[in-house]
């Protein structure tokens, strides 16, 4: 157990199925249950008594702080976005869902208090910001997650990637989103803290499901090419350099009207000085966060996360490198201790995503 974002969380589980690699592999072949209750679960809504109107008011207000199109999100649809500061730096990345009467946000655990302060400071007073601190969040991830959850909670299997809905569970309800942070099909489930143990036990009772910790969560998301806030994206990085331009909707790039728009568009139009790239390494020695990247004798970048890929059997990394060296296939070197490791700029995801987009 380690302290993480104010919570005590397991790096890995013990027992015959425990360990980062075993948990990682089980997630890729069956299904794993992650307790991600440290994440911040928030909602934003306007004052209207008519529920769709309240959500629309919340969406409009949020668009002042996010570069994505939120007002066009239909009920039950979700989108990846970012909170930006005035310089276009990334304050956090988050999931935004039109939940019907409100807009739901799931933000990072380590940044949730800053996010709440930021949102409360800049959202108009008539917009309600709620923190669901009495709700847990479980992530069920893996190719068998769909059949497992459908068996336990009929109807959930009909959700497709990046959609969400409310379901009955026991005496109450749970909010189920088909999304995740592993590159696999799966769900994130919002459940009241008094019901979470029962739900977790019911999921683990299924032989196809085993628990997994923070270690596997990190190695899985790295293989999936998904950035980790505080490491691969920070206030020192912008969405363009971070290769997250898919989250800058075209309409909003042109119309603007959100915090950080000007600086972000300067990078968008002028080109990023550095770009977040994937690196695959020769040999078995991993390069970790902070390792310097070289082209010949010239330092051209820095690794922001890296490790050994259990799926691929060799080390992979994310790094920011000068734009001139960011093209796929570029040969680079990474300095690790006294050695120079041979690396190549490689497309991400390193391991293909396997999201469920409908049968």
């Amino acid at each position: 157990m380690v302290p993480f974002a104010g919570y005590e969380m397991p790096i890995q589980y013990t027992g015959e199925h425990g360990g980062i690699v075993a948990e990682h592999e089980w997630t890729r072949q069956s299904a794993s249950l992650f307790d991600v209750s440290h994440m911040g679960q928030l909602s934003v809504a306007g004052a209207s008594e008519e529920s769709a109107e309240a959500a629309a008011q919340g969406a409009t207000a949020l668009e002042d702080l996010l570069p994505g199109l939120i007002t066009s999100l239909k009920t039950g649809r979700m989108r990846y976005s970012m909170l930006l500061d005035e310089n276009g730096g990334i304050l956090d990345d988050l999931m935004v869902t039109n939940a019907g009467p409100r807009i739901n946000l799931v933000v990072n655990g380590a940044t949730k208090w800053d996010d709440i302060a930021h949102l409360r400071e800049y959202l108009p007073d008539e917009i309600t910001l709620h923190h669901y601190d009495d709700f847990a969040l479980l992530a069920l991830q893996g190719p068998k997650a769909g059949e497992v959850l459908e068996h336990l909670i009929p109807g959930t299997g009909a959700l497709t990637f990046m959609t969400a809905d409310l379901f009955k569970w026991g005496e109450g309800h749970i909010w189920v989103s088909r999304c995740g942070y592993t590159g696999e099909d799966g769900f994130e489930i919002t459940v009241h803290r008094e019901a979470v143990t029962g739900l977790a036990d019911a999921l683990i009772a299924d032989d196809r499901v085993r628990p997994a910790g923070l270690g596997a969560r990190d190695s899985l998301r790295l293989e999936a090419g998904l950035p980790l806030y505080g490491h691969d994206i920070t206030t020192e990085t912008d969405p363009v350099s971070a290769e997250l331009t898919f989250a800058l909707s075209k309409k909003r790039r042109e119309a603007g009207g959100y915090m950080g728009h000007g600086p972000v568009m300067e990078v968008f139009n002028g080109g990023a000085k550095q770009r977040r790239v994937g690196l695959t390494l020769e040999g078995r020695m991993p390069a970790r966060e902070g390792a310097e990247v070289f082209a010949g004798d010239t330092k051209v970048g820095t690794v922001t996360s890296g490790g050994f890929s259990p799926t691929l059997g060799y080390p992979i990394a994310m790094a920011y490198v000068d734009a001139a060296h960011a093209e796929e296939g570029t040969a680079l070197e990474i300095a690790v201790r006294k050695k120079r490791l041979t690396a190549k700029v490689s497309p991400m995801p390193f391991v293909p995503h396997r999201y469920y987009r409908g049968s």
Partner: protein
Amino acid sequence: MPRYFTDEHEWIDVEDDTATVGITDYAQEQLGDIVFVELPAVGTALDKGGDAAVVESVKAASDVYAPISGEVTEGNAMLEDEPALVNSSPEEDGWFFRMSVADKAELEGLMDEAAYKEFVEGL
């Protein structure tokens, strides 16, 4: 053949003027799945307590220190292809390197098996 232990969780077997060094079962369990071991080159002069090797697990890189001073005479070539030997057989097949014993007196400050066991139980 006497086996000694350090408080950094290395073990060292001494036979005449040669010693074999590895990490303990407790250490491998703490490190988790080991994916790479960086061994010192043959001929490297090691100082007691100084950096000798690096173990890379999925989660992090960890230093392994020289239990005594001496010169590296051999690295365990099996670890190159199968670093997981350190997990499965840390105190036998998963040894790290062999070295000369520069000064036998340096062994005196190390723990024997019973003392190490007690040390680990106290952690």
